[in-house]
């Protein structure tokens, strides 16, 4: 820096030192803090989110959200796939077969034992 430039710098220092101080109005502080409150309120979780978080803590305490959500999603997918792939007739036939055999078992159980008294004697 040359001597001339140094003089320019000193002049700038003195010139800017003559400028009056800028006071901070309390209304401006209040406006800025009101903005903060607004942003903080927007960032806070809503009712639905709070309910979801409570459910998550009950199901899987201190787990990240994606864990219970992915297990729930996987169980849904498995359920839907099973419903779509397994034919409804299989369920119907299984159900009727099992009902008939159990009826027969009960019928057999309820009938009085057939005893050939003559043969035994």
């Amino acid at each position, binding site marked *: 820096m040359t001597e001339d*430039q140094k003089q320019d710098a000193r002049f700038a220092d003195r010139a*800017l030192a*003559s400028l009056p101080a800028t006071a*901070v109005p309390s209304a*401006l502080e209040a*406006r800025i803090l009101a903005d903060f409150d607004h942003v903080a309120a927007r960032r806070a979780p809503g009712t639905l989110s709070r309910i979801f978080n409570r459910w998550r803590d009950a199901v899987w305490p201190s787990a990240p959200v994606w864990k219970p959500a992915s297990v729930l999603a996987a169980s849904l997918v498995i359920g839907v796939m099973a419903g779509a792939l397994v034919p409804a007739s299989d369920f119907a036939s299984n159900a009727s077969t099992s009902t008939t055999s159990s009826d027969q078992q009960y019928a057999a159980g309820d009938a009085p034992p057939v005893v050939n008294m003559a043969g035994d004697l």
Partner: protein
Amino acid sequence: MRATGLDAALKFDPDTELVARVGKGDRAAAQALMARHLPGMLRLARRMLSSQAEAEDCVQDAFLKLWTHAGHWKPGQAKFQTWLYRVTMNQCYDRLRKRPNLGLDAAAEVADLAPAADTVLVSAGVAVEVEAALQNLPERQRAAILLCHYQELGNVEASEILGVSVEALESLLARGRRTLRSKLSHLRNP
């Protein structure tokens, strides 16, 4: 040399903890950050824009950006104060560009008309002349002068705020100081 200075500044950034707390919604931390930086930001914006009302709006917008982005702040990338002053400076540039182009003479007249002529003290008159001379500087030169001579920041930090190299900042400073001195040459001892 520059990297070393920056590294040291980043390591001892006094605002990091407060910014993290603000990101979590801590109001007391927000108040502390505001108390620390608001006066300097308002001074800078006031001198850049030569309007108290616009400077207040500008600073409010800068803080709104801070409140919104504090949760994503990553310490170590930049010094917080540098980022905040850069945001403030960009807000000032935006407002200056939205203004109708008055030309240099008109700008000087606007600045001259600010105080009531009858009640101006000598020192206030000097301040008005200095303010008018500042407003006549190109905005980059004015920003450089204000950051280094008014906010008393170092060249490295000022260059970071303006997004230029230290050499480019020194060039802006040299031209700005020279113009300021020639415009105010009638004031022997401002």
